[in-house]
């Protein structure tokens, strides 16, 4: 009995020892891989860009669990060296200008390691080549992400580098993928790789997959199949594959041409909508009131600067500040307009030449005023996230958000202006005064007050146009000058005094300009449009939508 107890005890002891031994080995193994990992990360400190590439490779191959977070941080510029002990840390998020210290994260435990002031840290930099490598490397990890859109981007990144290993990864993922969009992208990627397959059937089925993808890289690879090698024989030996590829190339090219036509049309509409936006304000002051306001462009510039000021006043709220800027710019430009009207223009009604000269003077004063306050340098207006990037409609057609929103915005402003003029009391008065001043006064309308309001309305719209322009071009004191000629052209072309004329005129000028540009270049396109306009005005001096009725006779 006693003996068996001892034997059991010895057995247990043996098992315990064995376990202890095993776990000790595991700890040892763990720390060895950790040590390697840390050493590799540490080498990043003073490596050249070429060395960094090797180190990245080694980190991925080490299979260490922390390779991914460290490399992600490296890609996102969040890998820093602490100057005092030369230790490498991840930091919480990218550098914000406002914060002077960063939250450190240990590379091994991935736990917080306190704060460090930013001047005590040195960033480990990347260049384009490294970022590209990192993206493809990380894409392999992200292929198993739970978010389908992350997986989609990962597949796209991997497609840029279709070597054997990556193809195998895509094939494995394709077997378990559930999201239809990712699945489609995977199929395309695999088909792209299969075009080089030695099996004829595999090539044929790859072509039939790629046929509907409309992608440029698919088109390139298919076209490569049809090329002849220097000795005159086809690169692709099999005739069936060549036929299928030729049909696919024709199909893809035809659709791509169609979509690029739509794209050009959109470019034209977006250019046109900018023209319309800057011209409808002028359509009121020039068209309805007959005042040639050379300071119209500077009112737009004021609107753009208002956007800048609002953005500076609301740090960290770029997304909302642009919406706040719209009414603000309307008010700033509108009141400036009323001020100009009350102090200068009202003394000059009926004397177009003097009005032109006086408002030109005002435009110079406004420019210099802005130059004195903000300096002549460009001011940077940030584009909010919801206005950057593009809307991918299909493989070959994408529409940039900022242009899309500006087209929509133009339509909104245009309809708002139509409603104001046609359906409000003020609009009624403006129309009455513009049609017959004496009669309107006889009816008890304060024509002076109406003039000021109409001028303010036109100027306010110019300010709103400035908000839109701040998203497209530089905000500087000369902003207005570059658009004033175009806006007068649109108003004259469309028909003086007609809002619809400004709309149709601006849009058609934009589209014609963009249609001509690919063939003639930007300079000639502009000249052609100008010549066409002059010829048009020769035959129809009153523009597209000439003013009709009795009021037009005394003009």
């Amino acid at each position, binding site marked *: 009995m006693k003996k068996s107890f001892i034997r059991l005890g010895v057995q247990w002891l043996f098992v315990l020892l064995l376990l202890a031994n095993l776990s000790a080995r595991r700890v040892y193994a763990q720390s060895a891989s950790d040590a390697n990992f840390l050493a590799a990360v540490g080498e990043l400190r003073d490596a050249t*860009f070429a060395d960094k590439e090797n180190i990245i490779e080694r980190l991925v191959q080490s299979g260490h669990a922390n390779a991914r977070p460290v490399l992600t941080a490296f890609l996102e*510029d969040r890998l820093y060296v602490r100057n005092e002990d030369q230790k490498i840390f991840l930091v919480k998020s*990218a*550098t914000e*200008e406002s914060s002077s210290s960063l939250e450190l994260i240990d590379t091994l435990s991935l736990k917080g390691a306190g704060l460090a002031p930013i001047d005590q840290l040195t960033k480990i*930099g990347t*260049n*384009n080549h490294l*970022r*590209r490598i990192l*993206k493809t490397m990380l894409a392999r990890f992200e292929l198993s992400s739970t978010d389908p859109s992350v997986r989609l981007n990962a597949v796209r990144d991997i497609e840029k580098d279709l070597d054997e290993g990556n193809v195998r990864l895509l094939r494995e993922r394709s077997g378990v993928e559930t999201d239809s969009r990712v699945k489609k992208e995977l199929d395309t990627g695999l088909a792209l790789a299969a075009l080089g397959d030695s099996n004829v059937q595999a090539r044929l089925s790859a072509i039939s997959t790629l046929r509907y993808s409309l992608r*440029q*890289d698919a088109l*390139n*690879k298919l076209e490569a199949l049809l090329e002849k090698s220097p000795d005159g024989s086809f690169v692709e030996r099999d005739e069936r594959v060549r036929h299928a590829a030729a049909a696919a190339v024709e199909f893809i090219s035809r659709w791509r041409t169609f979509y*690029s036509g739509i*794209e*050009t049309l959109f*470019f034209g509409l*977006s*250019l046109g909508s*900018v023209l319309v936006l800057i011209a409808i304000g002028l359509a009121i002051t020039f068209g309805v009131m007959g005042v040639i306001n050379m300071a119209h462009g500077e009112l737009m510039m004021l609107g753009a600067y208002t956007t800048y000021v609002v953005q500076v006043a609301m740090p960290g709220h770029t997304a909302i500040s642009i919406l706040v800027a719209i009414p603000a710019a309307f008010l700033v430009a509108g009141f400036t307009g009323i001020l100009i009207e009350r102090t200068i223009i009202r003394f000059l009604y009926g004397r177009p030449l003097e009005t032109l000269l006086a408002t030109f003077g005002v435009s110079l004063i406004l420019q210099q005023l802005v130059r004195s306050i903000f300096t002549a*340098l*460009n*001011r*940077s*207006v*940030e*584009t909010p996230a919801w206005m*950057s*990037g*593009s809307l991918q409609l299909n493989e070959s057609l*994408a529409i*940039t*958000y*900022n*242009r899309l929103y500006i087209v929509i915005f133009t339509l909104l402003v245009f309809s708002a202006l139509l409603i104001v003029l046609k359906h409000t009391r003020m609009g009624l008065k403006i129309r009455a005064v513009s049609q017959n001043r004496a009669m309107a006064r006889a009816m008890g309308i304060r024509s002076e007050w109406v003039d000021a309001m109409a001028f303010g309305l036109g100027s306010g719209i110019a300010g709103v146009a400035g908000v839109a322009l701040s998203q*497209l*071009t*530089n905000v*500087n004191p*000369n902003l207005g000058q*570059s658009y004033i000629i175009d806006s007068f052209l649109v108003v004259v072309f469309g028909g003086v005094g007609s809002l619809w004329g400004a709309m149709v005129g601006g849009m058609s000028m934009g589209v014609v300009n*963009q249609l001509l*540009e*690919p063939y003639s*270049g*930007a*300079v000639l396109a*502009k000249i052609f449009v100008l010549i066409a306009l002059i010829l048009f005005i020769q035959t129809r001096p009153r523009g597209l939508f000439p003013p009709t009725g009795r009021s037009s006779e005394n003009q």
Partner: protein
Amino acid sequence: MKPADISINYTPFGYSDWQARVAAIKQFGSAGKKTAVVSTINGDANVPFYKELANQKISAEDIPVVAFSVGEEELSGLDAKPLVGHLAAWNYFESINTSENKAFIAKWHTFIKNPKRTTNDPMEAHYIGFNLWVKAVQKAGTTDVDKVIAALPGLETPDLTGGIAKVLPNHHITKPVYIGEVRADGQFDVVWKTNGTVPGQAWSTYLPADKDIVADWVTLKCGNYNKATKKCAGQNYK
């Protein structure tokens, strides 16, 4: 490089409607070959160009843009985030880590009373130029223009990046060449640099028309001496 692989386009000065141009670049770049844009865009037209590039999702990793006229001062006037990774070539960057440069930046910030103002390549050029002029005046003992010019060739002064700027007989100086990548804060990371300084050349050795022309103000006293015809064209140069 095949002629079909090069696409050249010119636009008016101050152009702002880049959408069609950038779409063409995107199309050109998707042909499967390594593509880069060499941009000679000057001044204001740069901002809408880079914005459009970013909006059409052309990243510097796929199609980098090398610019010759975008420096720290220009970047300070625009939102640099869409530009990250694009390249610029200069002889000086504010981010270059030398003690001379740090001292210069500190002095500049005290002078302008604004720690956010940047330094840039033209400023360094003036720093070198003024120091060289001072040395030339000291050597010539007068501020007489002709004598100062005669004293200039051969003079040396340290530049801000740890090199020596030397005035050559052709009145150009030696400078290092750096290629930098735009960072999100509007500064540049140097990604390539020449070994030491490069002597400035007045005439290209590649253009057939310029091949035989040399500038030498010390022995030949001529800015456009033709080695083949042994004549100095002077002001009548065509």
